[in-house]
């Protein structure tokens, strides 16, 4: 006895409509490969470049609660805006984000990061100075490295003080591609 896709979809929609989920997730296709996007009712919580849910579900359940379900509805807004971003028709994201489990320093840095404009780059040191910790460039690098919502929180726009791309969770080729898409690299 197999549950039909239609019955499955109706249950998942009802679960979200009744506000019963701690977290919903879905795979979003993109030109840089499939992305796993996870969102709560407060907003987008995670974007992973490794899109296999099995790699992340246990950890997400520990962080947000056990009621974690694949839920296209909860990630719809993010999916639409990511599509537009990759199509070149969106230069800033208008999404609520849920950073409830981020440490205060990380929250502050990620908040500052979200203000780095499309098509521009900044440096770890500049970002550190902006949060009032000019000597904390390395700590800022760690926050970038662990950015829970890459692309939407544009850590790809942060480069080394000599202009080198340094590193990126999705791989340096992805970082380069995103900067090229935004016209920040020729």
């Amino acid at each position: 006895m197999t549950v039909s896709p239609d019955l499955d979809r109706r249950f998942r929609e009802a679960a979200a409509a009744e506000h019963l989920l701690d977290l919903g997730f879905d795979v979003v296709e993109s030109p840089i490969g499939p992305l796993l996007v996870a969102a709560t009712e407060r907003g987008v919580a995670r974007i992973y470049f490794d899109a296999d849910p099995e790699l992340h579900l246990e950890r997400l359940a520990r962080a947000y609660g056990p009621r974690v379900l694949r839920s296209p509805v909860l990630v719809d807004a993010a999916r639409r805006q990511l599509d537009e971003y990759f199509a070149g028709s969106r230069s800033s994201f208008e999404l609520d984000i849920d950073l409830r489990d981020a440490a205060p320093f990380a929250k502050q840095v990620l908040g500052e990061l979200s203000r780095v404009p499309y098509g521009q780059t900044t440096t770890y040191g500049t970002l550190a100075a902006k949060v009032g910790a000019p000597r904390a460039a390395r700590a800022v690098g760690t926050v970038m490295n662990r950015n829970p919502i890459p692309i939407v929180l544009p850590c790809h726009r942060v480069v080394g003080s000599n202009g080198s791309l340094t590193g990126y969770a999705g791989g340096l080729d992805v970082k380069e591609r995103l900067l090229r898409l935004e016209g920040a690299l020729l």
Partner: protein
Amino acid sequence: MHTMATPPPFEHFYVEHRDIVLGFLRRRLGAQAAEDAFQETFLRALRAYDRLQHGDHLRAWVLTIAARLVIDSGRRARPVAHELPELPVEDGRPAYAEIEHLADRLPPTERAAVVLRYAYDLAYDDIALALDSTPEAARQAASSGVRRLRAGRIHDRLT
């Protein structure tokens, strides 16, 4: 060995049990009514899920929710015919009201078998499904559970 692991992410629980639950509901309600009951079963499970203390016996748990819905829908349709057996019946089955307060003391498998058989009136085929065992093993678990309960009750009276 019993593990007292935390419940898995709901997605895992749902994917693992959705086909079994739908099969059970179809046998009891027919294809059409089973679809509504399917959704309601997992919504109820979801409502209670963050209060589960551990991840043991989840299959029996979700089939118990489904069986409860089957009974409720039977009640609505035919208020008399599907009442729970509250009185002892001819085949020697105990009335559930007689044993309910004692069932908590049973080992988990016997407890599940007793509750599914006498509280929810499941057939041994379905209990076997719930317990991931055979109908014969389910029958034995239920009957040894009942024996244990009767012995316990007598013991209670004596002490």
